[in-house]
């Protein structure tokens, strides 16, 4: 079971925050009642389907939809001609930026098909079977072009060019010729050359990672209803319905106020549902057909046309003195963006060496387009890739220096006051605490069996805040309805209700949290960047404080005493001070039932741009066993240690740690996009793109470290993303420990491991 290095809840007087009640949406989810994206239906609804290009790179000469339109039951067909073109403009989406010129081309191909699976037309019909038949009647004339799938191939001067106008940004002098490199970024501190000159040991190594998909079990789905007066309703599975509204309004040329988006329950996202794919198409089909349109992707479409994250080529060089002090660190990162610019190479660069207190750092990154689906954010976008390379080299360096890998990290660990290479000075952070906890854990002391190895890796993620609204309605019976705008993807309604109950001083069961639609709250940025519990939590506490202020005003009115003579304690208004008088305390319910007579409804409404999101550091410890005959790597034991700031609902914090670790295990051992020479994806299904199943993994132990975030009322840090950063390096380090062979390519799947073992044995003969 899990352990915790916790703040003492009782000492802080916390009654609800830090407890583990059943989540408010729980019963709906165990009974099948919860409505996810594809579970929503409206009367008269049509079925929409997308025709996708089989060509990784081709000019689209013409599209003839006449036969499809003539098929009985077909109500609308749309192509590039129905989607308005847009100028280049960057807007934030999660931790990444999107560009509208690219976005319109990604939702529906214009001049070219840029990847296998690229949408070229869409149909709305009276049934799925009619829509399917109609797709086959659409004639698209393609002119295939040479394609490029690999990132290094795409950077070669003679590579097929995806975008004729792509001139690399961030180069001096600016290139004059188009290439597939959209930009070069650089971050640094000090002088790496002099740093390496001081080093007594230097390790450098290149790594390759494959694109991996977020792998949410729920495919993208939506229902759009566009009415004759130019207004629209949209129900969809998304991490950010306000962001969906913005994008759809822009693409359809509508006022934002005329689109109302309701977020369904969301069946996983991990960053992959921060962008739009079907939504603008469904709206355009609904507009053209005059009827509501439902669209649901197949799993094949999810793999071929959404997500994944970048595959990459990563080079890392680190130098240290013999006593284990790092003198310089350098990395070069080449990330695939997919068909359009915008890989997470920038956050990848910023994260790369963030766990370390360094004087001399240089990180250079390249964003490279290839004929693959445009990447989307995936849990700590960019971080896992660069930190995988760095944490492997750190481990190799520790071994070479004959230092314990935890001690080596402790010697160089970032702490409060460390100037991170990407800019800021860290406030209170918990990396050292996670490393200490690993050293103290019995897992670190157990003896390994034959063919087993142990690995350690640390990880860092920024976490974000941002625009957030929350409404807290105090009901006439003393219960409270809490409305947040961040879709609840993993239990955040429970943590928001806990913080509301704690602040108001009422029972958790008295707070009913819901996710409001886009017309019910002010603009609220999406659930991403590990911001939901942090930002909506901060807004919830402020809304509760506002409600408390009003409750005190009402009590003062009832008691006929000055407002400043009322204090709020344990869910009650109490008279306090010399001018207060002697009155029995009034509960929230007592005051609420008289609200109509004392001034009307009592509501707390908060609109903030949440600041002060603090990074979360984690360290993972893993034991593996390698089957030398089959090449299979089995995870024998796994422990996640991470700083949560404050775990509001510890079960769901543990769940984030465990889920992130297992996604990382998949990334490390099995998952990859496989392409044929024809540029088509060969494993677009869960049978061949194999995510971990229950029998692949052991229990995942967790240790919650709590170094409170001083900028949050309950000390919360985002926790969702950091857990996917350390697993790949931790497992690679464990495999190296078991075999004495260091892998520099993911995934470490059985054929590759077997090949490496055979090569090593051959070399030894």
């Amino acid at each position: 079971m899990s352990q915790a290095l916790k703040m003492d809840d009782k000492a802080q007087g916390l009654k609800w925050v830090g407890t583990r009640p059943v989540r408010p949406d729980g019963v709906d989810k165990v009974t099948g009642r919860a409505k996810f994206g594809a579970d929503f239906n409206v009367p008269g609804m049509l079925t929409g389907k997308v025709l996708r290009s089989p060509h990784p790179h081709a000019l689209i000469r013409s599209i003839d939809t006449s036969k499809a339109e003539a098929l009985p039951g077909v109500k609308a067909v749309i192509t590039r001609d129905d989607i308005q073109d847009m100028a280049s403009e960057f807007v934030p989406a999660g931790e990444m930026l999107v560009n509208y010129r690219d976005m319109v081309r990604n939702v529906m191909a214009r001049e070219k098909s840029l990847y296998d699976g690229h949408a070229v037309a869409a149909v709305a019909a009276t049934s799925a079977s009619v829509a399917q038949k109609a797709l086959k009647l659409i004639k698209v004339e393609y002119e295939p072009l040479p394609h490029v799938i690999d990132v290094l191939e795409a950077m070669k001067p003679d590579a097929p060019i995806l975008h004729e106008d792509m001139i690399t940004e961030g180069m001096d002098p600016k290139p004059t010729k188009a290439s597939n490199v959209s930009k070069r970024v650089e971050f640094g501190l000090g002088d790496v050359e002099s740093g390496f000159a001081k080093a007594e040991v230097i390790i450098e190594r290149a790594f390759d990672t494959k694109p991996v998909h977020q792998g949410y079990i729920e495919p993208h789905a939506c229902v759009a209803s566009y009415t004759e007066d130019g207004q629209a309703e949209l129900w969809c599975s998304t991490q950010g319905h306000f962001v969906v509204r913005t994008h759809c309004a822009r693409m359809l040329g509508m006022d934002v106020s005329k689109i109302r988006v309701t977020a369904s329950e969301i069946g996983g996202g991990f960053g992959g549902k921060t962008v739009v794919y079907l939504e603008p198409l469904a709206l355009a089909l609904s507009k053209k057909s005059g009827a509501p349109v439902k669209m649901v992707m197949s799993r094949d479409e999810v793999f071929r046309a959404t997500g994944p994250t970048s595959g990459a080529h990563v080079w890392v060089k680190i130098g240290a003195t013999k006593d284990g002090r790092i003198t310089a660190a350098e990395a070069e990162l080449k990330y695939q963006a997919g068909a359009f610019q915008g890989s997470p190479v920038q956050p990848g660069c910023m994260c790369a060496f963030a766990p370390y207190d360094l004087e001399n750092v240089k990180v250079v990154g390249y964003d490279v387009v290839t004929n693959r689906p445009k990447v989307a954010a995936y849990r700590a976008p960019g971080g896992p890739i660069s930190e995988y390379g760095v944490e492997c080299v750190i481990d190799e360096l520790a071994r070479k220096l004959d230092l314990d890998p935890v001690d080596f990290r402790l010697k160089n660990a970032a702490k409060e006051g460390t100037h991170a290479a990407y800019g800021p000075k860290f406030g209170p952070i918990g990396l050292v605490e996670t490393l200490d906890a690993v050293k103290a854990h019995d897992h670190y002391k157990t003896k390994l069996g034959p063919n087993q190895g142990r690995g350690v890796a640390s990880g860092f993620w920024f976490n974000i805040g941002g625009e957030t609204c929350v409404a807290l309605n105090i009901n006439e019976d003393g219960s409270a309805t809490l409305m947040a705008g961040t879709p609840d993807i993993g239990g955040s309604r429970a943590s928001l209700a806990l913080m509301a109950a704690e602040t108001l001083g009422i029972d958790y069961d008295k707070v009913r949290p819901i996710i409001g639609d886009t017309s019910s709250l002010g603009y609220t940025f999406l659930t991403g960047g590990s911001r939901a519990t942090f930002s909506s939590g901060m807004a919830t506490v402020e809304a509760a404080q506002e409600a408390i202020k009003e409750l005190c005003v009402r009590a003062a009115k009832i008691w006929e005493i000055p407002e400043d003579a009322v204090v709020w304690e344990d869910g009650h208004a109490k008279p306090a001070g010399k001018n207060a008088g002697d009155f029995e305390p009034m509960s929230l319910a007592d005051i609420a039932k008289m609200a109509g007579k004392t001034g009307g409804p009592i509501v707390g409404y908060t609109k903030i741009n949440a600041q002060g999101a603090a990074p979360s550091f984690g360290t993972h410890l893993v034991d593996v066993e390698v089957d030398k005959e089959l090449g299979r790597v089995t995870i024998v034991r796994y422990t996640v240690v991470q700083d949560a700031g404050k775990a509001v609902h510890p079960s769901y914090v543990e769940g984030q740690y465990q889920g992130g670790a297992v996604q990382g295990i998949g990334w490390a051992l099995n998952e990859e996009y496989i392409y044929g020479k024809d540029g088509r994806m060969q494993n677009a299904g869960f049978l061949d793109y194999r995510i971990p199943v229950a029998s692949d993994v052991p229990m995942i132990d967790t240790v919650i470290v709590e170094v409170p975030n001083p900028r949050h009322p309950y000390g919360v840090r985002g926790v969702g993303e950091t857990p996917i950063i350390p697993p790949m390096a931790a497992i690679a380090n464990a495999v190296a420990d078991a075999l004495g062979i260091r892998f520099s390519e993911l995934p470490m799947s059985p054929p590759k491991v077997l090949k490496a073992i055979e090569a090593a044995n051959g070399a030894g003969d």
Partner: protein
Amino acid sequence: MSKTHVSTTINGDPVEFLCEPEQTLLDVLRDELYLTGSKEGCASGDCGACSVMLDGRLVCSCLVLGPELNGRSVETIEGMAKGDQLHPLQQKFLEHAALQCGICTPGFLVAAKALLEKNPDPTETEVRYWLAGNLCRCTGYDKIIRAVLDTASEMRGS
């Protein structure tokens, strides 16, 4: 093509429906009968989100055709709780926080119930292999396995 008329039993109740020959049991449940608790994650029998019991056997409803249902008996997630009483597995999933997004949960519950009916005292390994056909991307399986083992222990005790 004309639709097929099918008479079947779902969660103990007689049900009739019309379906196209290519519609799966999952399509029928979700699109014709509006029983949307069974989910489509893959439509190829790889994710288990559509798990139901067909004549007492655990199946992926995406791999069964609607017209095959004539005269047979289907149990879905919607039939698991009795009145306002959750099944012990449903209760334990809640207590153990064995779900995050919840999309895979109905499939896991149906599959876990089938396991406990067959084997009331499974080992952790047996639970892991039985549930290996159900994909969960959020939890890392830890809390799901604990919830199933805890339910088994409680049901044996009672």
